[in-house]
């Protein structure tokens, strides 16, 4: 189904779903109880946001599609999430930094979706922005704490920056479906997001005594369905039940 609104909804939902799933892998494995609960709470918010988005996509798609069929019966090449969110959890510093890069983008993107010409998207954004605000606060605080922490925590987050920085540009490399949504006011002022993201990262990194890297070679492809090797493994686990027992319900 070629439709820029549908593609955009799938992209938004996949970002939240894949990151939510990644965080859920840490449930009961967090470094301390409070942070285990924080990551689990964020995962729950993200999967909840995914459900809202996929419900709208399913209605648009018709033919008996449901939020579950969209999440559980597509293969990796149909997923449109950015590569950043499918990267493995790594250590706590990497998990935190991945979250911060995403939250800083998401916060400023959803501020725009609040004004979307599409009423369903605007309503979802109104609900989600409150939650995303908590997420950004949490991840930004941890970037500062790890950067301006011990020698060990500083070296860990610097290693995470080296790993993840090449995945940041993809957020601002807008696809045809995002640009088409922009033109129709579904995703307004798309080109203003990068400057706000840059400012956010610059300020938090300064407080964390971290250096914003120079831009080098950057990965992209996720939004078009070209993924890193990690997504297939993630989907194999996430989709197992519905693949083995189609239509199974709790």
């Amino acid at each position, binding site marked *: 189904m070629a439709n820029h609104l549908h593609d955009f909804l799938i992209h938004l939902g996949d970002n939240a779903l894949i990151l939510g799933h990644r965080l859920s892998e840490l449930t009961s494995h967090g470094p301390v109880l*409070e942070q285990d609960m924080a990551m689990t*709470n964020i995962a729950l918010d993200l999967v*909840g946001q995914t459900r809202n988005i996929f419900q709208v996509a399913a209605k648009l798609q018709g033919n008996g599609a449901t939020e579950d069929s969209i999440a559980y019966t597509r293969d990796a090449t149909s997923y449109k999430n950015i590569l950043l969110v499918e990267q493995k959890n790594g250590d706590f510093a990497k998990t935190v930094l991945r979250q911060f890069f995403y939250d800083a983008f998401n916060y400023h993107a959803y501020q725009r979706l609040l004004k979307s010409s599409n009423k369903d998207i605007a309503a979802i954004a109104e*609900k989600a922005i409150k939650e995303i*605000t*908590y997420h950004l606060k949490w991840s930004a605080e941890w970037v500062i704490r790890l950067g301006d922490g011990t020698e060990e925590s500083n070296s860990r987050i610097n290693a995470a920056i080296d790993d993840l920085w090449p995945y940041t540009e993809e957020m601002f490399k807008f696809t045809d479906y995002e640009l088409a949504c922009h033109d129709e006011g579904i995703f307004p002022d798309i080109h203003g997001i990068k400057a706000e993201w840059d400012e956010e990262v610059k300020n938090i990194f300064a407080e964390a005594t971290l250096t914003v890297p120079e831009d080098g070679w950057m990965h992209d492809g996720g939004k078009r369905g070209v993924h890193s090797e990690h997504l297939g493994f993630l989907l194999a686990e996430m989709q197992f039940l519905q693949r083995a027992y189609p239509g199974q319900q709790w």
Partner: protein
Amino acid sequence: MVITKEHIYDILEKVQDPEVPVLSIIDLGVVRDVVLAEEGVEIIITPTYTGCPAMDMIEVGIKSTLQDHGVEKVKITTVLSPAWTTDWLSESGKEKLRGYGIAPPQGAAKSKRALFSEESGIICPQCNSTNTEMISQFGSTACKAQYKCLDCEEPFDYFKCH
């Protein structure tokens, strides 16, 4: 028997929030409207948090409680906008929370965008001290933060402003 809106609201008072059973869904502000039509009763609800797992149980609770009271045809519609806020929590709901050992939200919901801004001066539900501090903004459910009291040294849940 003629069913009125007030009658339906009275019945809905009996439906509890599964995660904080001391609150009814009316106290919580989850019920946005009740529409009476010939085809039946439509209950319009809004989720507290998007991923709140209690919402499915709340829907089941609404249907079964209304049916127990002879209201057979019930349709539940979920709306996202306007987004739920703790400002909709009833005064009696806040009292019930305090009695249950959960500090109710203090003040009006506002943007907490500012970095490190915490809600301070939260009143400990055990000893009423305001000498408390936040442990984590994420608690045992999406709607709660974890705090501790520096006077009685007990941890407690705070139903955070949202």
